[in-house]
């Protein structure tokens, strides 16, 4: 046996002792020298002085020697510590190898908990916690028009007033999306880009890696056209050439001079953009449209509240000037933290995921604790032997904790692997839904959280079993002496009531935590089903959509634009299998191009009151037939409406009609759109069945269809006139028609890109991706939680049955029926499950209410979901209790009684 020695922390020699030793030795030397000198004839005083002189620097020597000892002590202590830990770990690993199923269960489940928690934290850290990667990011705000519950973007009018009148910001800037077609001589491609004001990069504190930012002249209407490229554009399309400055690229058939290249990965506002051009906004003639996002930098040390008064004041001055095209006088200007703006609505989803992961992690740890308590209990004899052979109580605890530590380290390894996978997944598949996904990393902060979670895991599942094991062996020790302890421990039937109670408690907790997780997963799955069943309002099969954009430079005359659309319609209609072709400005289920405000003739909102807002869709006359939207009242668009100078008409959907004209016909009603008080009245000529444009989960708030402009309106000069969605319906599978539709467009004009091509079914599927991912994640976590709870209750019952084997056999031998005995055992287990679930259901009700925004078409207290979850859990628990019970009564009573 290994020689018993003091644990490493007793070995430290106090530095006072070291100092005293060194001093004594040096003193001894000086004494000897002095004595020798006196023998040689020195006077005592002189001898002492001479000894010191000959010695040299006593103090430096003293310091040096002490230091040598301390270094040695440190090294020794470190070595012993490591030796001890290695020894502990070796014993623990050897022990765990003898219980591989237990070890695997704990490592896998706790590892899953750690990994999932870490991955979710990495996502939350990037999306919500970490400061924006700009200079002094806390000073950055977004400025918007506040008209609760909406936060509207600015218009050019708003922006120009802000830029001219503000005095409290250090800087302000604005940007708008500006997708353009890039041609490099051989092919045309639609790219993402933005138009930004002159101070945009200065406001954010982004410095181009090459070249410069925009000048004031470039950001003025009619100024030189300049572009700043993203790092990605520069590398992929220009080969990262260092001499690109001053060269030009063609965007929308115009030449733009390259004045700068951004550094790689600058920030979330620049992420995924290919280029930035200087905004050359012409002087506006009306208040809208509202497509400008304004940002500002607060002076050092001031908060968004400091600018609130001034923003309100500028808006108040601006309002009367544009009253003819904008009436919402309740809207004010406000500023919000830019980071919060970019995070958007992600906070609630993140909270849900984090809650689910935390619950799973708790279950995994409690389960591990439960399994380890059982392990400690079944090893009582071994522990008592160790105690009898002189292992101290501390040593026993350390021995038990070492096992937990080894398990925790292995679980952390599994967790790192899972977290890494999760981070990769979030950066790729999740990038479309997670704000600032490009910033998600498995970095220092995340790993620190992982380490902390691991340490908490170990504390959660290590401390109770260790205390139980060491405490248990010693309590008995004290009462009966070691002999008694050994004797009782050898017989497992007695003295384990407290352990049983503890394990019962742990199992109850598992069920209490698993219930809300399963309920939330259930509610999410029901929500997903409801979303998938949402009726878009038409037959979604075999409908192809795609955006066609005519380059401004080649399509300068309305006639040319109209000819293109006409020929496109007839050419695509000629493709075999195609049964209908239409044009619109919007796509179901969530690509409503335009929201517009309007004034009703019958019920004007009155001056200064916000006007109602609904979705406005430009549609060609064929739209209704191609989609299969049913006409309910009135008429559809026809040649009358698209001809020049025809009276202004709209068609509304049923939801609109019911909302604004409940109980009466909407046909013949008149309105003025876009807040234009000087325009002619627009007449409602028809009512059609509703179509979802605002997302599957949104209420139908009404849609207004306007006839797609084919008259003298400024088609070539406006983006909307040159851009349309092409809608194609085919009789057979649409996939076969897609190449020919593409060819038809290419044959008409190879410079016209056909982008965002997708069938309606694909669009629906895409909009279900995020809820599907979320319910998949939480469902998977819930299944693991249920499995772990079942493992827990099974373990407890198997252990109970094993310990009560004699009692059971006696009952059976004395004539108890197996049914009754099984009933007794199962009732015992189900009592634990029952109270756990009772607590769990209460928690689930509270949780689900908290998360009600994440559910669709199902009440957070949905009785069906609760019932199914409860039934599922009870059935699983019943099976887990029944199996050991059945095994117990099937044993031969006589053979059980004879053993031991």
């Amino acid at each position, binding site marked *: 046996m290994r020689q018993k020695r003091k644990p490493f922390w007793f070995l430290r020699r106090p530095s006072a002792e070291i100092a005293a030793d060194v001093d004594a030795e*040096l003193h*001894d030397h000086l004494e000897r020298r002095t004595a020798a000198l006196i023998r040689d004839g020195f006077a005592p005083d002189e001898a002492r002085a001479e000894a010191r002189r000959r*010695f040299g620097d006593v103090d430096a020597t003293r310091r040096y020697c002490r230091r*040598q*000892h301390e270094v*040695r002590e440190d090294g020794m202590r470190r070595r012993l510590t490591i030796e001890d830990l290695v020894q502990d770990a070796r014993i623990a690993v050897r022990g765990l190898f003898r219980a591989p199923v237990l070890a695997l269960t704990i490592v896998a489940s706790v590892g899953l908990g750690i990994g999932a928690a870490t991955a979710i934290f990495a996502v939350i850290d990037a999306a919500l916690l970490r400061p924006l990667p700009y200079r002094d990011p806390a000073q950055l705000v977004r400025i918007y028009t506040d008209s609760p519950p909406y936060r509207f973007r600015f218009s050019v009018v708003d922006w120009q007033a802000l830029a001219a009148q503000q005095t409290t910001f250090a800087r302000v800037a604005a940007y708008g999306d500006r997708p353009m077609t890039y041609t490099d001589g051989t092919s045309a491609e639609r790219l993402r880009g933005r138009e930004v004001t002159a101070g945009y990069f200065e406001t954010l504190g982004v410095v181009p890696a090459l070249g410069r930012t925009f000048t004031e002249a470039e950001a003025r209407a009619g100024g030189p056209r300049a572009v700043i490229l993203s790092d990605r554009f520069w590398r992929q399309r220009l080969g990262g050439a260092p001499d690109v400055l001053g060269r030009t690229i063609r965007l929308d058939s115009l030449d733009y001079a390259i004045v700068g290249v951004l550094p790689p990965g600058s920030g979330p506002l620049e992420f995924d953009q290919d280029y930035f051009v200087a905004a050359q906004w012409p002087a506006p003639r009306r208040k809208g449209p509202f497509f400008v996002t304004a940002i500002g930098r607060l002076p050092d040390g001031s908060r968004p509240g400091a600018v609130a008064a001034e923003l309100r004041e500028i808006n108040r001055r601006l309002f009367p000037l544009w009253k003819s095209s904008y009436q919402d006088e309740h809207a004010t200007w406000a500023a919000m933290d830019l980071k919060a703006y970019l995070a958007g609505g992600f906070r609630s989803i993140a909270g849900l995921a984090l809650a689910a992961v935390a619950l799973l992690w708790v279950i995994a740890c409690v389960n591990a604790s439960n399994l380890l308590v059982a392990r400690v209990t079944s090893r009582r004899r071994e522990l008592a032997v160790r105690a009898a052979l002189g292992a101290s109580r501390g040593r026993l605890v350390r021995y038990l904790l070492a096992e937990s530590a080894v398990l925790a380290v292995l679980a952390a390894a599994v967790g790192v692997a899972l977290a890494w996978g999760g981070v990769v997944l979030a950066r790729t598949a999740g990038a479309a839904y997670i704000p600032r996904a490009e910033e998600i990393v498995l970095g220092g902060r995340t790993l620190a959280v992982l380490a902390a979670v691991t340490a908490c895991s170990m504390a959660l599942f290590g401390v109770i079993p260790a205390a139980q094991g060491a405490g248990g062996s010693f309590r008995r020790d004290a009462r009966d002496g070691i002999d008694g302890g050994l004797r009782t421990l050898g017989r497992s039937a007695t003295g384990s009531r407290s352990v049983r109670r503890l394990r019962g408690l742990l199992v109850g907790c598992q069920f209490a935590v698993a219930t809300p997780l399963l309920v939330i997963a259930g509610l999410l799955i029901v929500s997903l089903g409801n979303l998938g069943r949402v009726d878009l309002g038409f037959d979604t099969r075999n409908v192809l959509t795609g955006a066609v954009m005519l380059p401004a430079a080649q399509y300068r005359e309305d006639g040319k634009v109209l000819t293109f659309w006409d020929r496109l319609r007839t050419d695509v209609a000629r493709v075999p299998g195609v049964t209908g072709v239409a044009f619109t400005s919007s796509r179901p289920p969530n690509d409503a191009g335009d929201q517009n405000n309007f004034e009703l003739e019958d019920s004007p909102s009155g001056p200064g009151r916000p006007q109602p807002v609904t979705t406005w869709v430009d549609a060609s006359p064929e739209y209704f037939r191609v989609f299969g939207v049913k006409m309910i009242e009135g008429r559809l668009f026809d040649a009358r409406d698209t001809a020049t100078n025809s009276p202004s008409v709209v068609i509304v959907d049923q939801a609109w009609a019911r909302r604004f004209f409940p109980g009466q016909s909407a046909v013949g009603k008149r309105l003025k759109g876009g807040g234009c008080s000087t325009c002619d009245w627009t007449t409602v000529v028809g009512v059609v069945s509703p179509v979802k444009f605002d997302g599957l989960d949104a209420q139908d708030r009404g849609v207004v269809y306007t006839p797609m402009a084919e008259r003298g309106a400024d088609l070539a000069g406006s983006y909307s006139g040159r851009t349309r969605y092409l809608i194609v319906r085919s009789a057979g599978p649409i996939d076969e028609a897609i190449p020919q539709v593409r060819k038809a467009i290419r044959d008409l004009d190879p410079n016209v890109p056909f982008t965002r091509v997708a069938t309606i079914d694909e669009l629906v599927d895409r909009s279900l991706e995020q809820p599907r991912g979320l319910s998949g994640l939480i469902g998977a976590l819930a299944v693991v939680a249920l499995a772990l709870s079942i493992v827990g209750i099974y373990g407890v019952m198997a252990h109970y049955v094993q310990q009560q084997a004699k009692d059971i056999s006696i009952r059976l031998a004395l004539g108890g029926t197996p049914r009754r005995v099984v009933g007794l055992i199962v009732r015992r287990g189900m009592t634990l499950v029952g109270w756990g679930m009772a607590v769990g259901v209460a928690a689930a009700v509270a949780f689900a209410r908290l998360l009600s925004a994440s559910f669709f078409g199902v009440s957070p207290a949905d009785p069906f979901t609760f019932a199914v979850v409860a039934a599922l859990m009870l059935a699983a628990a019943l099976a887990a209790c029944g199996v050991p019970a059945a095994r117990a009564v099937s044993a031969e009573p006589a053979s059980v009684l004879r053993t031991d």
Partner: protein
Amino acid sequence: MPLPLLQGTLDLLILGAIGPRPVHGYAIASAIEERSGGDLRVEDAALYQALHRLERQGLVEAEWGASENNRRARFYTLTSEGRRRLAEQKSYWRRYARALEGILRGV
């Protein structure tokens, strides 16, 4: 006057002065002086610094014990590591001295 010490010889002198029996620091200093016929002398400060450094390096071991006339002193012995080092150093310096001698003979 004693000779100035050649660099690298201090450890050798100390290790060599510690015999098979434990000795204290003062005895080591005296032994070096005596055995070199007074030509070599190690400054006390340097001696003790070297002793404690050698102890940290594991070449010597020290223990408190009673010396003549019952005074307590710190006694040094060589560890096996120390003996090995001494043997290496010995053969090195012997060769060195022989080589030097050979050259000097020719002068």
